[in-house]
């Protein structure tokens, strides 16, 4: 890169394109500086929220503006990447709100580090979604992943949390290596790292194909798709619940954003293979979830199944979905609904969780409707949305994914996928059954009131519930902006 390109950064459109990244980075620096002074402790929350909101506002203005590409076209802020960007900001904000009052006294002194790490993740995600170049994507991936490794093991006194962090780190390092190796092979075969250039040259020959396979493997790892999904249950269960919420929603969305940008690299003939991988992922995720007695672990498996469902749109596109943006719209809406639903579900678990892991077990939810009716009702709503029942955002997301398949003529995968989602209802219903239809377990009867809830978490849960319902009942509010 020559200095001219740096100057180019200061033209208004280019500046607007990177404005969200700048806002987040500025917030990060202010947060770090403020952290030095003990007297500024109370500013931590406002700085966090303000920088996320400002970043969200910049992203929203990019959404309506013409596409802006920067740094030799390696990063693009267009409608799609801005829509994803909004999701990342929302996911981070929700996870952060749920993390307030979540940690124990012993962990509280490190809340600043926690927030700094959390605020750096949307920077990585935004870079990933806007990346037009394999290296830029890799930088985004690392900016996202490294804070997450630390966050996963944030509860240092718990072996589960440390185990989660270590597992995530080791496997994440492998995935990163896969990506780099794949990118280097692609570079060797095509002579470029720019996605558009690769698209022009096309994927020919075993070298390029091997590169594509390795890049896809690392993406599949990040979105947690078969056969790279095995890390999910342990990591999701062991990590602090708000961090799990962020991993399940933000990370997955960011990886899918890039997967959709780079799926042109897959040969058309791979459509059925991708569909098969997606269906196997759904099957393994759902069957795995069916066997769980811990709700957090169950939601981890369910996250795997949802990743499989979104992957179906890739199969739909490869098989020739006549609508050019069908896959993007379906994935965006599906992940949008999933962000609110999964963040809400994990967040409520975080709210219920106290010391010890027992509180996320299915047993502990028994009779919750009697003790805490509002939380039970909200959790029911999230379960129904995860199950894709109408009047929730999950339904329309599922609808759009299956539409993409049907348009492409993949009727059988659509039908099998539909039946696999019946299996999913089996375990979502179990949560509802426990809360509404089973008596309070004796040892919990004494806890009739439950732990004190935090206002931040309550607001976040309410926002999630409102959005899940709005996306289901008044989808025009969201869809009109997509078209």
């Amino acid at each position, binding site marked *: 890169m020559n200095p001219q390109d740096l100057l180019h950064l200061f033209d208004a459109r280019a500046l607007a394109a990177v404005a969200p990244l700048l806002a987040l980075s500025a917030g990060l620096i202010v947060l770090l500086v403020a952290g030095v002074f003990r007297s500024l402790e109370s500013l931590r929350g406002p700085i966090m929220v303000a920088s996320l909101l400002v970043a969200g506002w910049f992203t929203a203005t990019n959404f309506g503006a013409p596409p802006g590409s920067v740094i030799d076209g390696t990063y693009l802020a267009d409608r799609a990447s801005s829509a994803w960007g909004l999701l990342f900001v929302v996911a981070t904000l929700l996870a952060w709100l749920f993390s307030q009052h979540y940690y124990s006294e012993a962990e509280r002194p490190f809340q600043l580090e926690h927030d700094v790490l959390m605020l750096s993740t949307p920077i990585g995600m935004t870079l990933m979604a806007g990346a037009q170049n394999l290296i830029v994507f890799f930088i985004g991936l690392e900016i996202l992943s490294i804070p997450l490794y630390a966050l996963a093991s944030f509860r240092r006194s718990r072996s589960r949390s440390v185990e989660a962090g270590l597992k995530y780190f080791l496997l994440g390092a492998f995935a990163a290596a896969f990506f780099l190796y794949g990118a280097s092979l692609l570079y060797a075969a095509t002579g470029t790292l720019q996605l558009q250039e690769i698209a022009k040259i096309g994927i020919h020959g075993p070298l390029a194909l091997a590169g594509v396979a390795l890049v896809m493997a690392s993406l599949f790892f990040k979105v947690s798709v078969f056969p790279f999904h095995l890390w999910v249950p342990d990591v999701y269960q062991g990590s602090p619940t708000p961090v799990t919420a962020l991993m399940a929603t933000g990370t997955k969305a960011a990886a899918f954003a890039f997967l959709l940008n780079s799926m042109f690299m897959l040969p058309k003939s791979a459509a059925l293979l991708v569909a098969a991988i997606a269906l196997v992922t759904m099957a393994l995720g759902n069957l795995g979830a069916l066997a769980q007695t811990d709700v957090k672990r169950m939601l981890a498996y369910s996250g795997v199944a949802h990743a499989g469902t979104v992957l179906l749109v890739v199969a739909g596109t490869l098989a020739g979905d006549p*609508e*050019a*943006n*069908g896959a*993007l*719209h*379906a994935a965006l*809406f599906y992940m949008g609904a999933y962000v609110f639903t999964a963040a809400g579900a994990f967040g409520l678990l975080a709210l219920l969780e106290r010391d010890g892991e027992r509180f996320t077990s299915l047993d502990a939810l028994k009779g919750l409707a009697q003790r805490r009716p509002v939380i039970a009702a909200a959790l029911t709503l999230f379960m*129904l949305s995860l199950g894709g*029942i*109408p*009047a929730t955002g999950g*339904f329309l997301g*599922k*609808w*759009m994914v*299956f*539409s993409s398949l*049907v*348009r492409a003529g993949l*009727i059988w995968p*659509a*039908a099998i996928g*539909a*039946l696999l*989602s*019946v299996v999913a*209802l*089996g375990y979502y*219903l179990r949560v509802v*059954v426990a809360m*509404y*239809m*089973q008596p309070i377990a004796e040892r919990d009867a004494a806890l009739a009131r439950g732990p004190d809830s935090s206002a931040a978490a309550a607001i976040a849960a309410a926002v999630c519930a409102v959005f899940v319902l709005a996306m289901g009942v*008044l*989808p*025009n509010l969201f*869809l*009109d902006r*997509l*078209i």
Partner: protein
Amino acid sequence: MDQLTLITFLPLVGALLVLLTPASQEKALRVIALVTTLVVAVLGVRLYLAFDGASESMQFAVDKDWFVLPSSAIAVHYKLGVDGLSILMVALTAVLMPTVILSTWGHIDKRVKEFMVWMLVMQTGMLGVFLATDLVLFYFFWEVSLIPLYFMVGIWGGERRLYATIKFFLYTMAGSLVMLVAVIALIYAFRTSDVTALLERASTLDAHKQAWLFAGFAIAFAIKVPLIPFHTWLADAHTEAPTSGSVVLAGVLLKMGTYGLLRFGIDMFPGAAIEHAPLFMALGAIGIVYGAFLAMAQTDVKRLVACSSVSHLGYVVLGLFALTRSGLSGSILQMVNHGISTGLLFLLIGMIYERRHTRALDQFGGLASTMPLFAFFFVFTVLSSAALPGLNGFVGEYLILLGAFQTSPLWAILGVLGVIFGAVYLLMATRRMLFGPVTHEENKHLSDLNVREVALMLPLVLLAVWIGVRPTPFLDQSRGSLDRLVRKIETARGAHSAALDPAPASNTEVIR
């Protein structure tokens, strides 16, 4: 606000009111629910009276933009309307509900608030299913109406309620999700979700596609009805459900299946329906006889009635797929009849259960002497259910068998046999419960029906007599729509036989 929106969403407003009332005010909760359903019932009757049965078109239509599916710009509308195929079901749903709510006085005494909320939400869902004339909206209501019953059985049900409710939910969802794929495929085939437009155009699809789409829809509806071999969830759900849940399930929810077969099976894909009619007639007729045999073998009287439901809905399916005028109009009427008589039976069984806390047939006997009023209503209902001439069941079954005979004498004869078996198990159960000596000490001191219990059954009893004596006004309500449907079936039949037998013209060519 327009009439149909009002009638559909008024129960939901009632549910919100109930939600805002403190749970301790049980009386207020019950009254709110009752008043809401009474207003809906009045609106339903008004709609029924204002409806013009001679017209073919959708009446009182509402059409508003809802949302646009992205990337292919298909506008999904909030669109309601009522025609001859749905008017009776709408009226039944509206009229049955106050009875159901009133019956809960006797058996719902814990978590009253939640129950009323679910009951009212369910009514909105059911009315929506019958009124929606946009396919997406229909599917929306179709799935939403599942959830309340899931909670009703799961919370207020009997001992095996969890098993029953999960089985019910998963069974019906499996069907619904297969239907979802068919719904999507149909919508994208024509790039519209408007039911009226689809009804006009769907038969232009090639036969192969039609057959697949028909199958996708039909499986969901067959599970809901339920048709043999998908019937196993019903007996469990009915047995475990609280009385009011059973009444709504038998009275209205199952009719969503038969209504679906009529509107989205036969009306949407007449060609495929003709092709598959023998299968459905066979399943219907076998269901009639098999259900009757199942009922004969039951020792639990509620389970017996549940099995009789399978048998009675077999008639409806037999009549529908006879694809003749009398079969279709008999089936539409029989949907209402089954709602009335089976609803009454469940109510009566609920009443005796509240007194004796058992439903085992051998625990009763001689109730006629201790509970004469109960005995009167029970015998009346059994006769209505067994299709005694002069009561409602007779008209429907007669028309169905007549229609079926025109198409397939074999299955019609099997159906007639079912009438006899039906009389056998119903009268056997009556004898064992009501007559003979009082063999159990507890039965000697049972109190007879009280004013509330009689009052809540009276509207249904009157309706049963009315339909039995003067069925014409009820049948006339669907005349216009059936004219249209029969014409459509005839056209499709012409095309169908031409396709099967392209013979005459070309044969002569060859001979020359």
